[in-house]
């Protein structure tokens, strides 16, 4: 897993968001060593050298193991492909609005190269107090021993801030992204936290739709997750979403309502929060229970 010692590259570094968050990441202590914007090679952003291609960046900075991607949807496919083909282990796709066909292809292709994608449409990853590879507002996070995995960016900040004000903190927060098809699943990240020595409890922030929360619940039931899990799922007040023809029902993707998700997590043994400001209390009590 990438962390504070990882060398990081920024794709789309000269863009508005790319440049802004490069500065933020550097200030947070992240080792941002290179940026890429085709046609802007030779420039520099916040002291970070800019290259025309990932190939150029990697040949100068062979230690890069993570790329954070701020490239508009129409160019995100090529940018991520460049990153994967350069052998960069983690490509964090911040970009929102990437066509499903593109992300689905990239996710499968990355596996053929032994690479991982986080996102798209995600806020990235943060190891509070040490490094962030993403766009999280630093103010929301304090270091601690709670692992956080979330489908929603802003909900991540909200939850982390609540945890911070309660006096606890976060070992690592991972925003897996809100799209239907994403590179790293909630369960995979829960499994990472399960084996992560810096983490004592796991918070998952879910949303309506899909089966990611149900899959975590199944893993808890199967005894694969022994650390306490606290869950919040957004969307109780949300209207029923669009359904995918008959296929949606046949695939059993159903509606994945917040209620169903929370129920399956609760019956698997997770502590479920009805509001984000309930999280600290539940984390605290589940940690006490384990001890």
């Amino acid at each position, binding site marked *: 897993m990438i962390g504070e010692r990882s060398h990081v590259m920024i794709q789309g570094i000269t863009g508005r968001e790319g440049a802004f968050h490069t500065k933020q990441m550097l200030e947070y202590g992240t080792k941002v060593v290179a940026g890429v914007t085709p046609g802007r090679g030779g420039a520099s952003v916040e002291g970070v050298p800019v290259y025309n291609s990932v190939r150029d960046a990697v040949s100068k900075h062979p230690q890069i193991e993570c790329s954070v991607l701020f490239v508009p949807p129409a160019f995100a496919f090529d940018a991520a492909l460049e990153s994967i083909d350069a052998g960069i282990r983690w490509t964090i796709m911040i970009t929102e609005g*990437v066509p*499903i066909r593109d992300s689905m292809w990239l996710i499968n292709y990355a596996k053929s190269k032994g690479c991982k994608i986080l996102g798209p449409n995600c806020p990235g990853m943060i190891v509070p107090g040490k490094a962030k590879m993403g766009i999280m507002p630093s103010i929301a996070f304090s270091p601690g021993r709670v692992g956080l995995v979330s489908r929603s960016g802003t909900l991540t900040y909200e939850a982390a801030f609540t945890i911070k004000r309660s006096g606890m903190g976060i070992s690592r927060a991972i925003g897996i992204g809100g799209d239907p098809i994403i590179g790293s699943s909630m369960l995979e990240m829960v499994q990472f936290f399960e084996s992560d020595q810096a983490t004592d409890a796991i918070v998952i922030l879910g949303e309506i739709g899909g089966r990611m929360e149900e899959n975590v619940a199944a893993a808890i039931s199967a005894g694969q997750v022994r650390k306490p899990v606290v869950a919040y799922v957004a969307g109780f*007040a949300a209207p029923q979403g669009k359904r995918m023809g*008959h296929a*949606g029902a046949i695939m059993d993707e159903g509606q994945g309502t917040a209620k169903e998700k929370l129920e399956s997590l609760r019956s698997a043994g997770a502590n479920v929060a009805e*509001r984000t400001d309930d999280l600290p209390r539940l984390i605290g009590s589940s940690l006490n229970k384990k001890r």
Partner: protein
Amino acid sequence: MRLFEHEAKSILREYGVPVPNGLTYSLGGELNLGSLRSPFYVKAQVPVGGRGKAGGILLARTEDEVIAHIKRISGLMIGGHPVSSILIEESHVIEKEFYLSIVVDRTLECYTLIAGSEGGIDVEQSSRMSPETILKVPISPLREIRDFDISAISMHLGVAPALLKPIVHALWGAMVSMDAELVEVNPLILQGQRLVALDSKIQIDDNALFRQAAISSLPPRGRSAEEAAAFSQGLNYVGLDGEIGIIGNGAGLTMATMDLVKSNGGRPANFLDLGGGALSESFKRGVLFLMALDRVKAILINIFGGITRCDEVARGIAAAVAEKGYKKPVVVRLLGTNEPEGRAILEAAGIGAFSEPAEASSRAIALAGGRT
């Protein structure tokens, strides 16, 4: 974006799927059945299922019957949708009904081909009651349809591979090139030595509309005129019937804000997510859009800035509030990236900002005349 039946069929016809001969009648226009042969099906075009049970599909034997049916159907509301146009098609003798679709499989992260040996409107029920009638064939996006995929479906449906092959390839072609999330034909009927798609659904990935010019130039469609208006302003909006206008950044936070309002006894008027680095212009548009809605009594804006910057948000809100005709109270919760700048801008515009979502929510409900 969900296509109407007639749009989906015209795409599938192009890709080589046989569909009934037919024509699309625009409400209020001239009817000319041309060379269409009787009997006809007269079918309401609405972006939801359940038309048949709602009386939106009628059989006609004569032109007069067609005209009568059009009249009846035109006035229907089906699942809350007015009928947008009417498809008139030749009817077919059905020997056997199948179900066939390709869908994006969220769990396996690939495409999945679904074939049902009992097609028709009850396919969901037969898939539940008799799961063995359904075959699912996952297809990696890295590969193409191969003959053994066709064979599997052919065995399952008891239809010759030679008949199925062009249909499956057509669905696949449409799925991939049109950036669809779903391409469905149901029922796919066997008539003699020919397969015909009597009904069809296509759902296009909204994220891909930028490169699907033919689709994105179709008229917008939504649950209501309100949502259509929001769509045309580029707003990620869903209408609800409460009195608290909701704006958040990020779907998760926006939903959590709605949940909070609801659990505090208020009723959300809408879902409006201005996430992902939205600029002040979007916020201005969003606030003005909600202000213009009669049912909205107060607006609650909940922002935790990451890629979205608080100063941009504040500038947009301030600009909206500065517009002529500003009447409704706006409550803002602001935290995160560039928060101090954002607070300063709101302050200058006379708008107070909260840090706690619970406080902001209670304040909005109170201002809307609610119980809190």
